[in-house]
C-alpha cells in the first residue's frame, strides 16, 4: 500500500545528467550529424556509439555487476530525450534500453556476457517483432519448430529497427508452447537482411529467417517474461525521445517566430500564431509530465507500469505530430525545404509515432485498463 512517493520533478543528479548529455550531444551529434550521415548513405556512426558507451549510456540499464551504470528508466528517458532533441543517431533504444531489459530478465547467467558487451558498447542488438502493417506483438507467424535439442526458425520480420547493422537479433517466434524469444547472431546462416530506405534515414530492415538453426541456449525465454518488459521499457524511452524531438522542433519554431518579419513586424507578434504556439507549449508540458511519470513508474514497479507507459506514448505521439506539423506551417516555404531541419524532425516523428504502437494502440490499452 505505502508505495514510495513518486516525485514528478527532476532530482539534482538527473538535471546534471541532462545537462552533461546536452553538452556532449551539441558537440558530437547536432542535427547536422544526422544530415551528414544521411547524405553519405550511412545510418549508424560506430564512433559516436563508442563515445556514448564510454559515458555509460550503453549500460544505462545494465547492472553494475556486469559493468553497467544501472541508472534506471527515468535516467534512460532523460538520455533519450536529449538525443531526440537533435535527432542523434544511435542504437540506444534497441540495444541499451530494450535488449538490455530483455536480457536482464534471464536469471541463469546465460546472458551475463551479452550484458557486459552491451555496456561496453561492443555489441548491438535489434528486436525483430513486427510482421504486419501495425505494431502488434501478439501477432507472430514466424515459427520455431523443435529439431533435436534445438529449433529451426522460419518466417519474416519487417521494420526491424537497427536490423541491418546490429550484431545480434532478438527475435520473437511462435512455438507449440507459445511465443518465445531467441537471441541469435545477425549473420547466422539462413538469415537474410534487407535494409529499408526509411524516411527518417535510420537503420531499419526486413529480415527473413529461412530454416535458421537455434540451440536450446539461444532461447531466452517466454515472450511475456522477456519481451514484454523490454517493450514497455522501449515505449517509455521512445516517448521520452519524442519529448526531446518536440522540444527541438518547438525551439526552432519559437526562434523563427521571433526572427522572421512580415508586414513590418516579427511574425510572433501575430496573435493567431502566438496562441497556436502557446497551445503547443501546453501540450508539451502535459506530455512531459506523462513521460516523467512513466519513467518513475518503470523504476518503482515495472509490472504495474503499463498504464503509465501507454499514456506517455499516446501523448508523446499526438504532441510530436502536432509539433512538427505546426513547425512546418509556421516556417512557411522554408519549412518545406530539404536544406532546413524541420523536415528531418517531421520524418523522425512519423517513424516514432508508429514504432512500438501508435496512438490508437495505446489508447486501446488504456481503455482496457480503465474499463472504457
Amino acid at each position: 500500500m505505502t508505495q514510495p512517493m513518486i516525485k514528478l520533478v527532476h532530482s539534482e543528479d538527473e538535471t546534471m545528467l541532462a545537462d552533461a548529455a546536452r553538452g556532449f550531444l551539441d558537440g558530437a551529434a547536432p542535427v547536422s550529424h544526422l544530415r551528414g550521415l544521411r547524405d553519405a548513405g550511412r545510418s549508424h556512426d560506430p564512433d559516436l556509439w563508442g563515445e556514448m558507451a564510454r559515458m555509460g549510456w550503453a549500460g544505462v540499464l545494465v547492472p553494475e555487476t556486469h559493468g553497467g551504470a544501472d541508472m534506471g528508466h527515468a535516467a534512460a528517458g532523460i538520455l533519450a530525450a536529449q538525443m531526440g532533441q537533435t535527432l542523434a543517431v544511435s542504437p540506444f533504444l534497441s540495444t541499451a534500453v530494450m535488449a538490455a531489459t530483455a536480457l536482464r530478465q534471464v536469471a541463469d547467467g546465460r546472458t551475463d556476457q551479452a550484458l557486459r558487451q552491451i555496456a561496453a558498447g561492443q555489441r548491438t542488438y535489434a528486436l525483430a517483432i513486427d510482421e504486419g502493417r501495425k505494431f502488434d506483438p501478439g501477432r507472430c507467424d514466424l515459427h520455431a519448430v523443435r529439431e533435436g535439442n534445438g529449433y529451426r526458425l522460419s518466417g519474416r520480420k519487417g521494420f526491424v529497427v537497427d536490423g541491418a547493422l546490429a550484431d545480434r537479433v532478438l527475435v520473437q517466434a511462435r512455438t507449440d508452447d507459445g511465443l518465445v524469444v531467441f537471441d541469435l547472431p545477425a549473420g547466422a546462416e539462413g538469415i537474410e537482411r534487407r535494409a529499408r530506405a526509411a524516411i527518417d534515414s535510420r537503420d531499419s530492415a526486413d529480415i527473413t529467417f529461412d530454416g535458421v538453426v537455434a540451440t536450446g541456449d539461444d532461447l531466452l525465454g517466454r515472450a511475456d517474461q522477456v519481451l514484454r518488459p523490454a517493450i514497455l521499457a522501449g515505449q517509455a524511452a521512445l516517448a521520452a525521445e519524442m519529448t526531446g524531438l518536440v522540444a527541438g522542433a518547438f525551439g526552432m519554431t519559437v526562434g523563427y517566430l521571433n526572427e522572421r518579419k512580415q508586414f513590418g513586424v516579427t511574425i510572433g507578434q501575430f496573435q493567431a500564431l502566438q496562441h497556436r504556439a502557446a497551445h503547443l507549449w501546453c501540450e508539451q508540458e502535459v506530455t512531459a509530465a506523462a513521460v516523467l511519470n512513466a519513467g518513475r513508474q518503470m523504476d518503482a514497479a515495472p509490472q504495474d507500469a503499463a498504464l503509465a507507459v501507454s499514456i506517455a506514448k499516446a501523448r508523446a505521439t499526438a504532441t510530436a505530430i502536432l509539433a512538427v506539423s505546426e513547425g512546418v506551417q509556421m516556417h512557411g516555404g522554408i519549412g518545406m525545404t530539404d536544406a532546413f531541419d524541420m523536415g528531418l524532425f517531421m520524418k523522425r516523428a512519423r517513424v516514432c509515432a508508429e514504432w512500438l504502437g501508435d496512438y490508437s494502440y495505446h489508447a486501446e490499452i488504456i481503455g482496457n485498463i480503465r474499463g472504457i
Partner: protein
Amino acid sequence: MQHAQDPALFRSQLRQWLLDNCPEQMRDGQNTEDTICWGGAGWVFSSPAQQQWLERAAAVGLTVPTWPVEYGGAGLDRAREKIFYEEMARINARLPLQSFGIWMLGPALLHFGSHAQKLHYLPPIARGDIRWCQGYSEPGAGSDLANVQTHAEDCGDHWQVTGQKIWTSYADKADWIFALVRTDRAAPKHRGISFVLIDMNQPGVTTRPIKLISGASPFCETFFDGAKVPKAQIVGEENRGWDVAKYLLTHERQMISGGGQGLQGGRALGAILADTAGPEGRIDPMLRADALRLEVDTLATGMTLERYKDISESGAEVGDASAMLKYMGTELNKRRHELLMTAGGLDALDWDGAMGSAPADWLRTKANSIEGGTSEIMLGIISRRVLGLGGQS
C-alpha cells in the same frame, strides 16, 4: 490530534480518524454546487452530517491541510497532503469545506499578509465562519482587469469606496469581499490599484443577483456607495495591489484547473458509456474514441497538476505556468461535459431528468474557460511571458 510526521504512520492515523469522524452521509463523493459546504455567517447546513463533518475536520486543521497550524491548518507537507487526498478518495469523502477564502484569499494572505492579518483572517476561513467573495471584474474591466475604476477616496484612517463590480460569484451570500480598488487615478493603470478587504455587512454595499444560462444565479452585481474600509484592511502596499491580484490569480487558476477538486469528479467514463449500449451491447465507436482521447488527456493532465505541485513544493513558484494548467484543465472539463451530454442523449435534455443535474453542470462548465481569465488570455500570458513573443497579446 497531533498529525504524525512519518508518512506511513500519518496514513494509518488518518485512516482511522476518517473512519471515526467522517459521517456516512458525507462519503458519497458528491462535489456539485448544491452539495458543497461553503460556510459563512449565514450558512444553512444541508444536514447535521454536513455540519458535523465541517466541525470535526476544522478542529484538526483538515479543512486547510497545508496551512500552518497557527492559522487553522494542519501544517501538512506535500507528501502527507497527497496521502490526505488519497485517503479521502478511498472512502469517497466529500471535502468538508470549500471556499474562495481557501482557494484564493488564503494563499494571498499567507504570502502578502502581515502576521496580525493572518491571525485575524485565516482561522475564520479555516473554520468556515466567514465566507469571502472576489471583487475583481467590473463592467469595463474584464480581461483588461487592470482597468478597474472602483475608486477608494482617502479619508485619513480609512477609505470610502465607490463603484461597481460585476460577475461577483456568491456576493449575495458572502460576508466579506476582497476587492481591487483604484487608490491613485493619476498613476499608470497597474500602479494605482490596491487590494483591500471589505466588510459587506454595511450600508454602502449592495448586491443584485444575475441569472446564469444554467438557471442558477450564483453571481451578482456588487455596488459600493461610500463603503468604509479601515486602512488596516489593505493587503500589501498601497498602489501595489496588482502584485497581490496577480499572485492570487495564479492560485485561482490552479484551483479552477482541477487542482482543487480533481479532474475526474463523478462516475468513471467506462460506466457512463456502458449505459449508452443498446440491446446488442454496442457502444458508439465515435463516442468511445472521444472517451479514450479524453481519458488519455485527463490522466496526463492530472500528472501535470501533480508535477506542478511537486515543483512548487521544491520551492519554485508556479507563476505563469498556472495559465497553462488553467487552460488545459478547463478545456478538458468542457470536453468531459460535452461527452457526458452526448452519452446522456435524450435523457440529458431535461432539468430534472434521468441524468440529474447533468445539463446544469454542463452549462456551468462553459464558464470555466472564462472565469479567472479566459482561455485566450491564458494563451496570451504564455506566449508573452513563457515564450517571449512580443506585440499584441
